[in-house]
């Protein structure tokens, strides 16, 4: 633990948090909070001495003295701004949070099938207390994870979703988490999301993290997802917080037999962002695709740690993470695949490819395979480099300039992984964000829109 951090600040924060407004949740949650606070103050923020944090220094977060954003800080936000965060044109299902608190005003959930439950956790504890108690904090273990412990200490609100058996939700459900500024405080939002997808149900969800201003807020989210037998779940996470923000999320998906899960992470924002994404394949023939794209510019640091846990036989898992790095930015990819002795016929593939667009950008990429079964197919690969010269030659041989060649190949590099998003609406949404972001950050207005075959 780091002695430089004043943990009494967080103990004080916790006391006023428990007193003010956070008392609506049932008593068993208070117990978890207290226990998590102890873990957090004992462990402290992680340091680079921990293997899991070797490449990412969170000192800037540790020094932050963040203030818990109470629900009094749910400031008014223009509907137009909210609208600009969504794909155009449709009446999307959406639930919106501002600084960690539900914004009823901006949420639209009336068109969901009536059996489907999408609400904030505080309300949900009144209607679905039993199921929440059964699952909350069962998957992301705060006892060995400082940020998860901090989140759990301040556990209060977030998205709760319950998709009953055999129900298919047609359009994607968007969960928008906005952070805003309040005076000069550095606010912290500890979002806590829980999603239960019952047997044979099907749903697509997008988690969208955005900021309204450029400020040094901390988003420290924990998302737990349970996907039951034969259910089909797709999640697209879009992290586009402001250039000064800090973003940490621990996301864990617990998959049961024959379920199909597709998770995609688009990481564009924040000065420092860390995504821990874990998939537990806890049933035979469970199928998982975990993909992502990070684009880092200036002095950004974006870190993905993934964990693919094969417990039972006959599970395929495919993982492709790609990075585009510019300026002095840095990216980390650490992908762990763990195959238990029982998990025969595992078919696991993991790939990480990085495109360096500047001489000063760096990437640390580390695949970790631990295989204890003998009849498996596991491959992994990592690559770091510039634009492919053979591809570039093809474009130039058609008269295309160096600049436009770079633009097209960069877009092509991104498109290969965004093409993995199954839902067409979400894929298009991501494609548009990627190209807009690249145009802004690389200052190249000539970048083409992404098309897929």
């Amino acid at each position, binding site marked *: 633990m780091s002695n430089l951090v004043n943990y009494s600040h967080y103990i004080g924060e916790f006391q006023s948090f428990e007193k003010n407004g956070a008392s609506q949740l049932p008593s068993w949650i208070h117990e978890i909070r207290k226990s998590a606070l102890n873990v957090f103050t004992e462990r402290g923020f992680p340091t680079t001495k921990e293997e899991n944090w070797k490449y990412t220094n969170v000192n800037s977060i540790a020094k932050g003295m963040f203030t818990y954003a109470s629900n009094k800080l749910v400031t008014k936000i223009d509907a137009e701004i909210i609208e600009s965060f969504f794909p155009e044109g449709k009446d999307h299902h959406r639930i919106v949070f501002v600084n960690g608190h539900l914004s009823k005003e901006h949420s639209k959930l009336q068109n969901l099938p009536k059996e489907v439950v999408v609400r904030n956790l505080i309300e949900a504890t009144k209607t679905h207390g039993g199921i929440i108690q059964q699952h909350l904090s069962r998957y992301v273990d705060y006892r060995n994870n400082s940020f998860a412990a901090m989140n759990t200490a301040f556990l209060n609100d977030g998205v709760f979703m319950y998709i009953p058996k055999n129900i298919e939700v047609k359009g994607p459900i968007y969960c928008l988490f906005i952070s805003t500024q309040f005076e000069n405080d550095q606010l912290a939002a500890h979002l806590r999301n829980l999603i239960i997808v019952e047997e044979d149900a099907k749903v697509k969800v997008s988690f969208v993290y955005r900021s309204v201003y450029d400020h040094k807020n901390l988003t420290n989210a924990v998302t737990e997802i349970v996907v039951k037998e034969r259910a089909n779940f797709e999640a697209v996470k879009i992290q586009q917080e402001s250039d000064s923000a800090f973003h940490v999320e621990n996301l864990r998906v617990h998959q049961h037999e024959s379920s199909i899960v597709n998770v995609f992470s688009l990481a564009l924002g924040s000065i420092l962002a860390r995504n821990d994404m874990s998939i537990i394949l806890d049933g035979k023939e469970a199928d998982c695709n975990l993909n992502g794209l990070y684009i880092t510019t200036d002095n950004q640091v974006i870190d993905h740690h993934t964990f693919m846990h094969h417990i039972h036989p006959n599970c395929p898992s495919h993982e492709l993470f790609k990075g585009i790095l510019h300026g002095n930015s840095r990216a980390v990819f650490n992908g762990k695949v763990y195959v238990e002795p029982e998990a025969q016929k595992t078919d696991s593939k993991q790939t990480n490819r990085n495109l360096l667009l500047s001489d000063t950008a760096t990437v640390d990429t580390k695949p970790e395979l631990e295989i204890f079964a003998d009849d498996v197919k596991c491959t992994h690969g990592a690559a770091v480099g510039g634009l492919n010269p053979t591809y570039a*030659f093809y474009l*130039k041989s058609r*008269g295309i*300039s160096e600049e436009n060649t770079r633009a097209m190949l960069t877009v*092509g590099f991104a498109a290969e992984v965004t*093409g993995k998003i199954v839902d067409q609406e979400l894929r298009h949404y991501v494609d548009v964000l990627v190209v807009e972001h690249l145009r802004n950050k690389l200052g190249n207005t000539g970048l083409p829109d992404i098309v897929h075959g």
Partner: protein
Amino acid sequence: MGPNGSGKSTLAQVLAGHPAYEVTQGEVIFDGQNLLALDPEKRAHAGVFLAFQYPVEIPGVSNSYFLKAGLNEIRKSKGLEELDSMQFLKLIKEKMKVVEMDPSFINRPVNEGFSGGEKKKNEILQMAVLEPKLAILDETDSGLDIDALKIVAGGVNKLKSPTNASIVVTHYQRLLNYIVPDFVHVLVKGQIIKSGGKELALELEADGYDLIKEEFGTMSHA
């Protein structure tokens, strides 16, 4: 023409400026300009075009965007006005007929998921749109079935004009039944060892390359 490993594709790539090759000696004069001094895109602006043996797939970028970008840069270099989207669409639809390509290919990513034949047709489509003075077709017949071969050859024939030329690189006489050459040159070990008219291709088909190699006492059996 020439046997495997004789340097046909290398020559084609060198002319177009592939970065894997460094030319240590000599020059290539094209229309009064030394091609070797130009970057690949400038060679394209000067009117050189290479139809690739293995066209590259570019995910995410539509065929039409790619071709429009190339055409407009070539037009710009000639002081011509760039085509807008409407004008380009009209042009490409016309050109697609030359290679009997389905219009749906316009908006698909460049070569991604195309069959071998479709990729080769796409190369000829690009040639039709860019209208080079010199087109180098590198093994354009490889991997084509007879129907695709006829279409590709037909495209090349339709594009022939008094102001342009094509170098067709091939192993086999088969393609030359459909694209009738004015000249045939035989390349062995990096050197042209025999030149002639279209009948030379027929001789090669009948006798193979070994006969000429012996005739010219080449060093192929060193």
